[in-house]
């Protein structure tokens, strides 16, 4: 399995470190936010619960043995085929923009 890093080109996956599901959104941590059941449930889901799809999966990898950038890789978990790689920073900025 080779991952085409946006900055370094295609490299063996052993150069990368896997974190997991890239679609999870960290619950709001505003100071003074209520510590209610809904917040606890949102944190529980964020930390522990996963869709774990069979098929395309958007996931975070870091190019630890290279440029050290964080990447969002779209990969088919049934075949290990990689369908796309984006810089995690760009994905996060785009997500922020749509939420504003």
């Amino acid at each position, binding site marked *: 399995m080779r991952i085409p890093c946006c900055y370094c080109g295609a490299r063996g*996956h052993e150069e990368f470190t896997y974190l997991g599901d890239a679609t999870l959104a960290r619950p709001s941590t505003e100071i003074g936010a209520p510590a209610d059941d809904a917040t606890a449930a949102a944190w*529980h889901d964020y930390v522990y619960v*996963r869709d*774990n799809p*069979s098929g395309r999966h958007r996931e975070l990898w870091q190019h630890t043995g290279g440029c050290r950038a964080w990447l969002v890789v779209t990969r088919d978990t049934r075949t290990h085929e990689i369908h796309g790689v984006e810089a995690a920073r760009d994905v996060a900025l785009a997500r922020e923009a749509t939420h504003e």
Partner: protein
Amino acid sequence: MRYSLTTLLGQALMGNRGWRQAWRRPDPKPDYDVVIVGGGGHGLATAYYLAKEHGLSRVAVLEKGWIGNGNVGRNTTIIRSNYLLPGNTPFYEWSLKLWEGLEQDINYNAMVSQRGVLNLYHSDGQRDAYARRGNAMRMFGVDSDLLDREQVRAMVPYLDFDNARFPIQGGLIQRRGGTVRHDAVAWGYARAADQRGVDIIENCEVTGIDVIDGRAVGVMTTRGPIKAKKIGLAAAGNSSRVAAMAGLRLPIESHVLQAFVSEGVKPLIDNVVTFGAGHFYISQSDKGGLVFGGDIDGYNSYAWRGNLPMVEDVAECGMALMPMLGRLRMLRSWGGLMDMSMDGSPIIDRTPVDGLYLNAGWCYGGFKATPASGWCFAHTIARNEPHAFNAAMRLDRFASGRLIDEKGAGAQPNLH
């Protein structure tokens, strides 16, 4: 047919023409008291103990492929109960006790071999951690012995004791641990469950779970709909997909684990040895092949095959431990699907859906658990409450904070 020396001799005299199929091949009935999804070791053991311990025989095991094609037939066959935490130790010890009586109980030769599991340590810190584990085991009445370097050398002289980076200082041994022929476990439980009236239905994939008013009432399958009063999920690496059919999301990721077999050689390794400075373990099958493995590949996968970097990693660990391995050829390698849970421990519990029960999250250590997993899951289904042995293996422990994290690695499944 009961297997015994007499039947063996009788069959030998008759040219072995009288052996019968070990279990029936029934068509699914329209409804059952209990339907188990997944005909791996855990599903079959559950059905067997439902019939044996709880008198339920209107039970079906639905298997999408054939008996033995899942992880039950792909693992490296190691059994042990050398766990540290109170939520785990009594459960795995019960499993080991069930293994000790299994062959008489199910009248099937599963080649249970208590050849000992030896975990090596390579540093003072690791020795202390193993001493702690060994003491924790003894407090639960589990056998364990801390060995020094010379005691280990007397047992396994061919290891690289003076490895420059990872010198062997000693080991923790559980002598009652060992190996069991994995396929025979699947076949033996299938045959024993069948004899007690359980329907084992192969080539029957569950494609949906019918939930009405918060209660599971049946399943959709590739062989038609089947009603059930209770449904137990035991689908190993596919747990997330099966649970999603009832609207549940689980604290689980599916990962791939590989294993390897060398060409056959004369008897060499008479126990199970694990490397303490990397993830590597090895034993020898009765056919002579060295059976070994290491870590999971480390990324979500449903591919049933791994990649080459892990093959290299396992080979390197093997060479660091046992340099003579370099003279052997690797004959085969394969992969299986692991339910990696968020704390590295399993789940045997009810679910938020009434009548739906979950057996999942076995990570790469579920084979040794097969008897106790089936025994406890049967209890949980039949009584609608967990047994003391699986009381800590709750689905809601991630919300309540009562995690069972043997490694202390946190909610990162690929590190467990």
